[in-house]
């Protein structure tokens, strides 16, 4: 079965239909997605500002102790609401370049965050390479957000 057929099947599913046909379900899930997005952005930003030395004096390892709970929770909510949004219109998404850009950048952002950024922060890494990793991680998440917004315009 091709990927396109899979998309058609998901679109025809009960869950997809329910979300698509409801007046308020899609907007409600989308709003939750955006609130979690703000939480993720905020928690990563506050750690990044500390690493880059822009205004925050608190050591990043200290910030990480509290901030990583928020970023983890935000990622979980984002993934759940994101899947629900996708399930309601997979055929449309299949044809949108922005969607695939978002999925690829999302994979990169998740790998960067959980396998590079977080472990380095836990170890209290600093210096030019840590700043580089920080800039790349933020860039990856910004690409995800912008590609996501672009799905709506394309």
């Amino acid at each position, binding site marked *: 079965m091709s990927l396109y057929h899979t998309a058609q099947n998901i679109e025809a599913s009960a869950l997809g239909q329910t979300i698509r046909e409801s*007046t308020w379900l899609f*907007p409600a899930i*989308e*709003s939750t997605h*955006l*609130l979690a997005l*703000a939480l993720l952005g905020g928690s990563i930003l506050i750690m990044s500002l500390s690493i880059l030395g822009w205004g925050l004096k608190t050591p990043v390892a200290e910030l990480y102790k509290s901030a990583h709970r928020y970023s983890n929770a935000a990622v979980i909510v984002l993934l759940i609401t994101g899947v629900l949004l996708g399930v309601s219109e997979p055929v449309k998404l299949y044809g949108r370049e922005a969607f695939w850009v978002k999925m690829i950048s999302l994979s990169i952002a998740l790998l960067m965050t959980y396998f590079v950024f977080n472990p380095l922060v836990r170890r209290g890494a600093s210096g030019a390479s840590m700043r580089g990793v920080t800039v790349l991680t933020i860039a990856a998440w910004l690409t995800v957000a912008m590609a996501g917004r672009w799905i709506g315009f394309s």
Partner: protein
Amino acid sequence: MILIAAINIAVFTFKVERDKAAWDLGPVPRKSKICAVISLSAWACVIVFGRLIAYNWFDCDSITSPTMAELTGCPLDPG
């Protein structure tokens, strides 16, 4: 909501945080917690309502109650 957030942070800046040096010594004052709750709620509403602007809640097609028809000036679909 943006106005509420702005007033809230003005009150916080000029009234509430004056004695913030003492906050580390004891429990955080209640008035500062109230400001924090107002701030978080107001900005969450800014995000949610901002997103909801994009939807046509008042499309005549989706109006089914007589009250809403009256308010929006839409003809009520008899079917």
